[in-house]
């Protein structure tokens, strides 16, 4: 059986990739995808622990995360479309009207 620590290492790697993507990319869609990456890395950690401790609640939690992520994608993409219509751009740096 593959040790749990391998899964956790992969999860941490994926999460770091996600964070790096959010912090460095300007394109809203890429940022969005990076957020999904972070969510899924967390899912991976959940199922890994669920398997180790033989506890199904970790797996159930993953389903919840996926449902929420799906809803978030729906809303988020709609927002991006709306922003593109008004700004002709989806660069996050052009959305700075709320600065002090």
């Amino acid at each position, binding site marked *: 059986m593959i040790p749990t620590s391998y899964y956790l290492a992969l999860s941490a790697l994926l999460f770091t990739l996600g*964070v790096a993507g*959010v*912090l*460095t990319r*300007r394109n809203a869609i890429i*940022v969005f995808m990076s957020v999904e990456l972070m969510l899924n890395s967390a899912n991976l950690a959940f199922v890994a622990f669920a398997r180790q401790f033989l506890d199904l609640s970790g797996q159930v939690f993953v389903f919840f995360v996926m449902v929420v992520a799906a809803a978030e994608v729906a809303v988020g993409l709609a927002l991006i479309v709306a922003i593109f219509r008004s700004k002709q751009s989806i660069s*996050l*740096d052009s*959305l*700075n*009207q*709320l*600065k*002090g």
Partner: protein
Amino acid sequence: MFSLAPLVVLFPLAGFLANLFFGRRLGAQQSGLLAVVAAGASFLVAVLQLAALAGNGFQPATVPVADWLRLGDFHVRWAFQIDSLSATMMLVVSGVGTLIHIYSLGYMRADVEHNGDPGRYTRFFVYMNLFLVSMLTLVGADNFLMLFVGWEGVGLCSYLLIGFWFEKGEGGVGNARAAMKAFVVNRIGDFGLLLAMFLIFWTFGTLTFGELFERLEAVRLDAAGQWIVVAITLLLLLGATGKSAQIPLYVWLPDAMAGPTPVSALIHAATMVTAGIYMITRAHPLFALAPLSMEVVAWIGAATALFAATIAVAQTDIKRVLAYSTISQLGFMVAAVGLGAYVAGMFHLVTHAFFKALLFLSAGSVIQALERGAHADAHGGQSGEAPIDPQDMRHMGGLWGRLPVTRWVYLIGALALAGLPPLSGFFSKDEILLDAFAHNLVIYVVLSVAAFLTAFYMGRQVLMVFFGRPRSAGAAHATESPAVVTTPLVLLAILSALGGLLNLPAFDEHGYAGALIFKEFLGHTLEAEALPLNWGVAGLATALALAALGLAYALYSRAYASAQDRDPLQGLLGPVFAWLRDKWYVDELYGRLVVRPFHTLSQVTARALDLGGVDMTFNNLGELARAAAAGFSRFQLGYARRYALVMFAGAVAVLVYFLMAR
């Protein structure tokens, strides 16, 4: 029957609310009638209460309506106390009130036309009904707190009605200023009443009259308690001097004449100003424990009676004479209750309500007759006379032939006030003089001099108004008022003439059927004493009144050929006359002693404390918040990724903290 007692207040309350919300929609005519019906219904209920009392052997009854406050031991409820004292007041207030409401139907119609704002007709009746609500609450209360509600309510109505034409008067603010003065001066008295109530609750633990008077025994033998009762009664007296216009707080009443004449009659002569006398009478068991306070009350009353009478002698405004006369007569009543002669005080209160309301209403009739005369003259174009002050007696004269009803009722009112037998004023004033004679000779002499002056200024007034030659075009063309105005006058004149029947004096201690009815009646509530008639006192009082009227006739029957003439008293009294005419300069004295220092003080505090202290503190606090906001807003760059980075750093920091803390 007693259960109907709340209706005495609820009827005017309904009239007040209906006129307040729907008055405009009802139209002037209907709203006026509604107010009259409300007042009349209230009077009927008061009569029913009297009948109920009679059926109950005149035993007092308490009619609870609702719980009001319950805080620990402190319990106050809305409840009506029906006994012979409150029933008397209810009958006077609602009875005279109803007559004055009827009179106002006609008077105010002309008044709003004359002042050029017919829309205000309804408002007048709204205030009047509210006044009845407050006054009947005051007299019906079974505890001090409910009495205080009525007490403040009548003060509010007084303020509203004095300032009824708030945009008129001297410099466009005269009436508003008079209203404010009445309110502020009354507040000083109210403050005394409030403190008295605090002290009563602190000492006796109750504000309900019945319970309070039962608990008085506890302090009767206690020296410290005695002094507390003295303090309570003196504070109550301060309240009474405010509401009942006694020295030193009487100054608001003459200025209150800025209100329409029915207001002067109802509030500032017949009912509201007697609230102080009623309150002292109601609290008589307290006063009985404080002989010192009784002494003070008697002296303040006597001093006010004389002082105000001297001023009335030299006034030229028809209503001001009556105003000072009212202060003086209230002084008689206060002196009476101070001497322990509660029945005499209440008796004079009742008859005074009749004849002083009559005099004020008749004066209103005279004033409007003059306004009509001036109006007719201006339209007829007979003489181009400048408009005159229709309240100035110097511009009247010769109205005897022109006002066939008003002249008789005015004469009856004036003679009743002067104290000529067999009119009501003679009996009530004689009873006060009799008690003064029996208890305190100095006060008796003071009151007798005041009575002499009373007869003199009333003689002067009648002669100046009705006799001699007309001294203005208005007086020359004056016409009698309509029936709606004169009918209440006639009714009041009958009451003024026959009011003495209420309490005919007894010739010896046995009395006779029909003597001292009022004393018997009030005797169920108060410890009433009645001295048998003293022919010397009565004869001297009558002789003084006749002498004063004769003196007035000698001086004024041929005086004032024209409005610019000198007053004959001026020649007689020399410089003293100016002092009398200018009201002993009390207003100026108060202005110098109280008003101006107060102004200066408020200027100083406004600048130093308000602008320099409070304003500066809060301005600086605001400035600080604004600066802080400007500083912190730098963080709001608007770049989402930067926010994410900060969040990330924060998350890492939290994580590191927990890992290190392990």
